[in-house]
């Protein structure tokens, strides 16, 4: 039964994307229906992964080296599950927040995005992963262009070129590996791969591609504008799901294929530290609400990369892994909730200017509460997923005696507290004018509560950390 789950996870998004594209007037209906089905399928997959021994699915009945094999791993499947949940709520949100012409494109595009995610998180084949990356990249570009302002178009063009260059680099890496080993399957490659110049060059290309697509600090130039100028649900999807996919690949490859030199992995972690501070400072300085959130994403990506500082330490690597996984889940939920809640605020205020948003806590309390909960998770205050992540990072840093990273984590925490509390204090101040209350619409209630659910989960799920860690083994 679980065996057919994997083709089902391919078929469903493909079919619903077709339906949504064909009947564009009913795109929202098909989108939300897809969200529900996809989420339940991913739950089933999680259940299957938890109960069955690891299995692989061979497409077309052809065994691995020749055909394409998908194998659900615990970590990948759980990210897929979280992504499906975020997607479902974002779809519900988009139904009420986008205009009809935008909806007609939003749903098919993001349904395709789900297809890409399935491929990236489940595939064992490095070429199929390339196709998945292409799907994700194209969807992301299309989605970020939905807001047809010149700024958004320009940002999405920059995004398109960056993602194309990155895809090209990744493909080059795949080509070199295939030319060298004649294999594309990850588990078939693991035993034969050797530390040789061509292999290392291929890895170099792949790493650069991942860094560019994940928007790691010096290569993050495209992210802020693309995320900040897209429509709200799109920003949520882009920052919560899209960059995670490539980060997951980077981690997966580093953990299985790459024969990293210690210095290189350290270098990645230093990039992470740079990202934490660069993103944090830019976020603190930005006067545009959505830009602030986008820069905060750049900063949070840095936390994900910190795992490379501990990947081949002598200490227990599972601790750093837990830290990274929780940072990922926390950011996925908190950031999507943050964006969606900020979307409500922006929609009521009709401006993204932060200084004009004073006192919104009394106008849309639920969204401000959602933002506060997200902030708790992003700063890493207890008890939130972000806190668990920070805890494990601090513990790994202490046990491996990497004081530099210890201080970086603390400093990053202070920085994110600075810009997030700045925002929260502003929201809690006196409203500039009372007339805003009139602009509230009925649909805002749904919007507020979907955002709240995501933010709340980013805090509340921490109480299940023990089971989550046990599940991921």
């Amino acid at each position, binding site marked *: 039964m679980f065996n057919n789950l994997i*083709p089902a996870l391919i078929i469903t998004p493909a079919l619903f994307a077709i339906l949504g594209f064909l009947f564009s007037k009913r795109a929202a209906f098909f989108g939300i229906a897809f969200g529900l089905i996809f989420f339940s399928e991913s739950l089933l997959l999680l259940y299957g992964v938890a109960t069955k021994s690891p299995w692989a699915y061979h497409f077309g009945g052809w065994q691995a080296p020749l055909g394409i094999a998908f194998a659900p791993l615990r970590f990948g499947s759980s990210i897929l599950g979280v992504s499906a949940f975020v997607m479902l709520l974002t779809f519900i949100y988009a139904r009420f927040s986008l205009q009809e012409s935008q909806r007609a494109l939003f749903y098919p595009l993001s349904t395709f995005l789900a297809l890409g995610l399935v491929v990236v998180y489940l595939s064992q084949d490095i*070429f199929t992963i390339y196709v998945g990356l292409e799907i994700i990249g194209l969807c992301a570009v299309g989605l970020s262009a939905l807001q047809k302002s010149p700024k958004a178009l320009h940002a999405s063009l920059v995004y398109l070129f960056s993602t194309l260059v990155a895809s090209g680099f990744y493909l080059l890496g795949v080509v070199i590996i295939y030319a060298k080993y004649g294999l594309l399957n990850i588990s078939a490659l693991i035993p034969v791969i050797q530390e040789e110049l061509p292999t290392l060059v291929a890895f170099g290309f792949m790493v650069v591609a991942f860094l560019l697509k994940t928007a790691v600090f010096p290569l993050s130039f495209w992210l802020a504008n693309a995320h900040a100028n897209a429509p709200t649900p799109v920003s949520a999807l882009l920052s919560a799901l899209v960059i995670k996919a490539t980060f997951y690949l980077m981690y997966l490859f580093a953990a299985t294929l790459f024969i990293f030199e210690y210095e290189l992995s350290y270098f990645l972690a230093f990039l992470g530290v740079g990202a934490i501070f660069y993103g944090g400072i830019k976020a603190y300085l930005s006067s545009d609400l959505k830009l602030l959130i986008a820069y905060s994403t750049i900063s949070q990506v840095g936390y994900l990369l910190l795992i490379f500082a501990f990947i081949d330490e002598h200490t227990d690597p599972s601790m750093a892994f837990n830290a990274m996984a929780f940072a990922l889940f926390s950011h996925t939920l908190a950031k999507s909730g943050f964006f969606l809640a900020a979307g409500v605020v922006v929609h009521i205020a009709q401006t993204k200017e932060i200084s004009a948003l004073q006192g919104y806590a009394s106008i849309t309390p639920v969204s401000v509460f959602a933002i506060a909960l997200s902030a708790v998770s992003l700063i890493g205050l207890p008890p939130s997923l972000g806190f668990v992540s920070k805890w494990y990072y601090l513990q790994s840093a202490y046990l491996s005696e990497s004081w530099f990273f210890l201080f970086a984590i603390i400093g990053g925490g202070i920085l994110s507290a600075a810009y997030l509390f700045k925002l929260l204090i502003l929201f809690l101040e006196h409203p500039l004018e009372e007339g805003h209350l009139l602009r509230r619409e009925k649909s805002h209630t749904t919007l507020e509560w979907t955002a709240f659910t995501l933010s709340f989960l980013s805090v509340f799920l921490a109480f299940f950390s023990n089971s989550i860690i046990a599940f991921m083994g």
Partner: protein
Amino acid sequence: MRNKTFHSLLYFLAFWLFVGLSFILTNINTLDSSMHTKLFEAMPHSGVTHEVTAVLLNFRALDTLLEVGVILLSLIAIHALEPNFRYTPLSFENTITNTFVAILFPLIALYAFYILYSGSYQSGGAFSASALLAGGIIILRLVKPRSFFVPKELILRFLYVSGLFYFVCVGMISLFFGSFLEYRDYIASFYIISIESVLMLSLGAILSAYFINAVQRVKP
């Protein structure tokens, strides 16, 4: 000034990338050809005699399915970029081109079908055929914009999605007999040819839509 620096930097990087890559690629000695031996073992069950077609539509059909998705997706993404203006499209309409195209288009279409069919035993197949077809349609559109027939939007959309849809349907049918997209031996060639034909039409429509949608913008 900045542009110039950027360009020279780009040039410098590209040059070294090229040198390095060519050095590496010429020095690669493939370690393992087990995939090739497996490929030749499996060829009799693939339903076609040409290896590329067998790989694309049988052994690694999932990749092809996803790529078809990518092409459809790119069309949707182009829709998303739709700018809000109207202008008269390019056209090269005169008697000579008219007559020329009247002969040329049927030839191109015929050649596309030939390429499609020949894909089973030599290089060719749906992608090349659809590219040819799309080229033909675009030429037709450029030369005879007035007599060019554009079907209703919904019908066009059906055409666009038909390739992916048919592919997924074949996959679902094959689920009843084995795994996703599993077809072997006697039935395989039928499936492959049918998929290729549908793909040619739908991809041809999508590829030509890239151009036609771009130039036939009407203000919404």
